[in-house]
């Protein structure tokens, strides 16, 4: 054992003097000296000092691996990794430990010093047999497929083309524009966008078509487009911007649904054809209570009716959600213009008698008396629902849908438009119903992400992805099913499952599920974990 780990360097640093209070670093070094470790201590506070110290340390001792021990070593990982790489060494043969652990885990029997040394020895064992990680160059196709010709798709395509990538935009219907084409006041904005889109040479628009098949991986998807003409393309990334469906909540309205009760989108059409009666009642939050798109449409429409037609406008809602751009302002203007707002808690009663809609509700402020409103027209907030083809599309792309049937992002906090499969992105309403400004921001952010990924045309990958031993693989397909990133495919020729390195995110789920133990993660091999368990528990230090 002693000979085996002789080339491992131990680099202890204590920039803030946290360790010094509890541990004598010299004592650690003297304990370790029997093990033929090369060890050094740095107390540099500044990053550059730390780097210089470490580089000198690497140069002086002929190392193959190193243990970095500090008080909170995570924050400086990059410095050490870069220095190691610079010296031509394997950056994965570095172990980082937090010597603070020794201070907080000190029992009656174990002394802080022993514990610190134990931590260092364990870490050294973790990396002692770490082989080099190969790298692979992967060519990236500089073409992007955008599914959906709504505002999300259009904006993404425009930004991508502006960045110099080729774009193929596939729209299921005849016309571009999607849902917002129906909204008054946005026609000019949309018209400009579509004109710009058609003018752009880098963008190819295929209408009345859909995605029929996909294969390959990020940087080299092979997609089949079906429709008027069939075509097979190779693209580097896929953007899903297929929007969502807006449905009038017929079930919740029951038998009261007739021509006097309409949805928000139908009312939009009436607004543009100036067919607006004298008394209008808006009712939102019947379903989908956390949809701020509903509130936005309500405020916009109520204000427009009040201003242009001077109708009596009453808005009934559970909660007004004004957390969108200019929401508060819009609400204030509606109030000032004379729109009345009432809050309800329990579902209001709706009756239609002699072409007059009667809405009755109990207001929280006057709980003893029922309020009754009469109106010529009742406009109901619409609920958002996933489109019909979502499941099929998710299966084609091997991505996931959430519990509501919308596309599930990989991480809601870090670039929420990323999917669990690398190279596939969700933009706009197909992920979460949202308003136009948010969609535009999302589309641009996604396009930037794709640009930074594809622009170079090639990528050098460290092959830390899972590795499948083809001799052992019995093609049970467990890994193919369990992989959350759709990164494992079946190689028919060689009769084995195969990992696509660019899609793999090294989570190791396949490795632990494989019934014949044919899969290993290079950085977390079975032998390494077992070695930790057996050696450390023996209780010997050094």
């Amino acid at each position: 054992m002693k000979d085996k780990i002789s080339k491992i360097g131990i680099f202890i640093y204590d920039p803030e003097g946290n360790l010094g209070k509890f541990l004598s670093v010299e004592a650690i070094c003297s304990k370790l000296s029997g093990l033929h470790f090369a060890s050094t201590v740095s107390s540099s506070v500044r990053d550059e000092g730390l780097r210089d110290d470490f580089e000198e340390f690497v140069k002086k001792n002929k190392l193959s691996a190193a243990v970095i021990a500090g008080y909170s070593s995570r924050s400086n990982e990059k410095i050490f990794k870069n220095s190691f790489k610079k010296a031509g060494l394997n950056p994965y043969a570095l172990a980082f430990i937090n010597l603070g652990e020794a201070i907080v885990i000190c029992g009656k029997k174990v002394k802080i010093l022993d514990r610190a040394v134990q931590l260092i020895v364990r870490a050294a064992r973790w990396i002692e047999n770490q082989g080099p990680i190969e790298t692979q160059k992967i060519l990236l196709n500089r073409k992007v497929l955008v599914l959906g010709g709504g505002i999300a798709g259009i904006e993404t395509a425009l930004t991508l083309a502006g960045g110099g990538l080729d774009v193929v935009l596939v729209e299921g219907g005849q016309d571009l524009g999607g849902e917002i084409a129906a909204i008054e006041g946005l026609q000019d904005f949309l018209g400009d966008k579509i004109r710009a889109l058609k003018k752009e040479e880098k963008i190819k628009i295929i209408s009345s078509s859909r995605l029929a098949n996909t294969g390959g991986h990020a940087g080299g998807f092979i997609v089949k487009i079906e429709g008027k003409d069939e075509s097979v393309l190779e693209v580097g990334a896929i953007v899903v911007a297929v929007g969502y469906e807006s449905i009038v909540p017929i079930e919740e309205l029951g038998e009261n649904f007739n021509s006097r009760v309409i949805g928000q989108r139908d009312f939009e059409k009436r607004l543009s054809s100036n067919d607006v009666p004298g008394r209008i009642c808006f009712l939102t939050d019947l379903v989908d209570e956390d949809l701020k798109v509903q509130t936005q449409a309500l405020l916009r429409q109520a204000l427009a009716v009040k201003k242009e037609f001077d109708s009596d406008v009453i808005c009934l809602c559970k909660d007004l959600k004004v957390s969108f751009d200019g929401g508060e302002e819009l609400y204030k203007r509606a109030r000032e213009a004379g729109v009345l707002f009432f809050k309800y808690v329990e579902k209001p009663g709706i009756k239609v008698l002699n072409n007059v809609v009667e809405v009755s509700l109990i207001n929280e402020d006057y709980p003893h008396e029922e309020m009754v409103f009469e109106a010529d027209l009742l406009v109901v907030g619409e609920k958002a629902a996933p489109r019909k083809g979502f499941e099929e599309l998710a299966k084609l792309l091997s991505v996931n849908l959430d519990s509501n049937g919308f596309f599930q992002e990989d991480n809601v906090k870090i670039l929420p438009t990323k999917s669990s499969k690398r190279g596939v992105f969700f933009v706009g309403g197909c992920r979460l119903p949202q308003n136009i400004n948010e969609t535009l921001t999302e589309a641009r952010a996604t396009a930037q992400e794709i640009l930074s990924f594809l622009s170079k045309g090639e990528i050098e990958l460290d092959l830390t992805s899972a590795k499948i031993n083809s001799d052992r693989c019995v093609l049970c397909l467990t890994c193919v099913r369990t992989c959350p990133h759709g990164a494992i495919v079946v190689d028919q020729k060689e009769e084995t499952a195969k990992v696509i390195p660019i899609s793999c995110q090294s989570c190791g789920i396949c490795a632990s599920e494989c019934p014949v133990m044919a899969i290993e993660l290079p950085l977390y091999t079975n032998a390494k974990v077992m070695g930790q368990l057996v050696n450390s528990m023996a209780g010997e230090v050094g």
Partner: protein
Amino acid sequence: MKGDFEPKITAFCCEHSGLLSANMAVESRFVFSNDVQMIRVPCSGKIEAIHIMKALEEGDGVAVFACHKEACQFLRGNLRAEARVSSIKEILKEIGVEEERVQMYYLAPSNGIKFAQLLRVFYENLKKLGPNVGRKVG
């Protein structure tokens, strides 16, 4: 005799929650346990059944620190780990080892205090249980 007993704990920590919580606990100086070995894994779904069994063979208890349900970085890794832990508990019952020796905990990345508390409770429980009968002798 039981008072002197110091249980040996292996803690498998998911890089995305357990490990970060552990680091936070360390940095805030919460003293959590007397003899614990933390093993870092990229996802709790990576923890193999054999690793947990081996850890039990060499020690007294195994704690698995995973992300909250539905918050797994890799979608369903923590659910897989949960299934594995419960199947291991079944095996332990059959062979006559207390099933409480393997525990699964769910943490957010910033749960330093909770991490320390959970480990403390786990440690106290193991102390009550006494030495692991399934532990390798010699």
